[in-house]
């Protein structure tokens, strides 16, 4: 009984240690992408800073063998979490060929932007 208790405590301590040393998980894609359809599968979302502006990139694959018509837009947020009003946040239509990649690269309208969301809708 004492051995079992000791093993459990050691296991718990190891779990705690692992928990402490594991780096925090990156935000999942769904934190940056809102897509309720099922034809596309998000492959990659990443962002970088270029000359003070945030550059965001999204790649999503059309899993079906057929053309899929979608529209997308990117909303940018300032440090207060308020959407930034800009002409660059607008719906854009795209036709994604079957089994091919939809790639979107956008740049923030201002340098004080800290967050963004891609919205993709099937049309």
């Amino acid at each position, binding site marked *: 009984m004492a051995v079992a208790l000791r093993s459990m405590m050691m296991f718990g301590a190891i779990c705690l240690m692992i928990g402490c040393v594991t780096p925090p998980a990156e935000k999942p894609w769904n934190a940056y992408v809102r897509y309720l359809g099922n034809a596309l599968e998000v492959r990659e979302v990443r962002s970088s800073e270029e000359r003070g502006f945030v550059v965001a990139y999204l790649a999503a694959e059309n899993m079906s063998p057929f053309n899929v018509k979608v529209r997308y837009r990117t909303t940018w947020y300032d440090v207060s979490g308020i959407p930034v009003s800009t*002409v660059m946040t607008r719906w854009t239509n795209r036709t994604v060929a079957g089994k091919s990649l939809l790639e979107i690269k956008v740049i923030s*309208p*201002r*340098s004080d932007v800290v967050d963004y969301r891609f919205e993709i809708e099937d049309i």
Partner: protein
Amino acid sequence: MYKILCMLTFSLTLIACSATPVKVDTQNDEAPTVMGLDYRDFEEAAAALVQSILESGVVVQPDGSRYVLVISRITNDTMLHIDTDQLVKKIRVALLKSGKVIVTTAMSANGAEDAMSYQARELRGDDEFDQSRVAGKGSLVAPDLSLSGKIIQRNNKMNSRTTQVDYLFQMTLTDIETGLAFREDEVPIVKRGSSKTVSW
């Protein structure tokens, strides 16, 4: 009685058929496009051109200060009666909001865009005005960059019933000191529809 009822029904039908004006939600307008150019096309072109300018990095000063931009000639080479400010104003607003560029209205390709900058200077020496508040000589800021462009339209008949209209939004950002085009881009907006639809 029957006649009155018939007339009332007819009147109600007429009222129901008349098109009631509706305000368009410009953030989410799903109405079909037109063969000409509407506000959505200008927004699309402006957004693409602004993205092109910001991506290039040519408007980013190393010391964080702003470039002064002057709006040069934007030519409407289409068959449409459009005001090119529909495009230019959106680009100007977006560049101003970027914090990297400020536009001068003291000059443009056709003289001062806002003549008041010069008219207010005519108050120099006028005793009726507080001279300390009148703009002094040498206070206008000369531009660093110039924005010029052109909107082109080409109609192509695809068959007896279908016409394709190509609209090309061209833009050049010139460094005034050197005369070199720092950034050039072209945004095509192509429409295909009935040949019966007039696009001018």
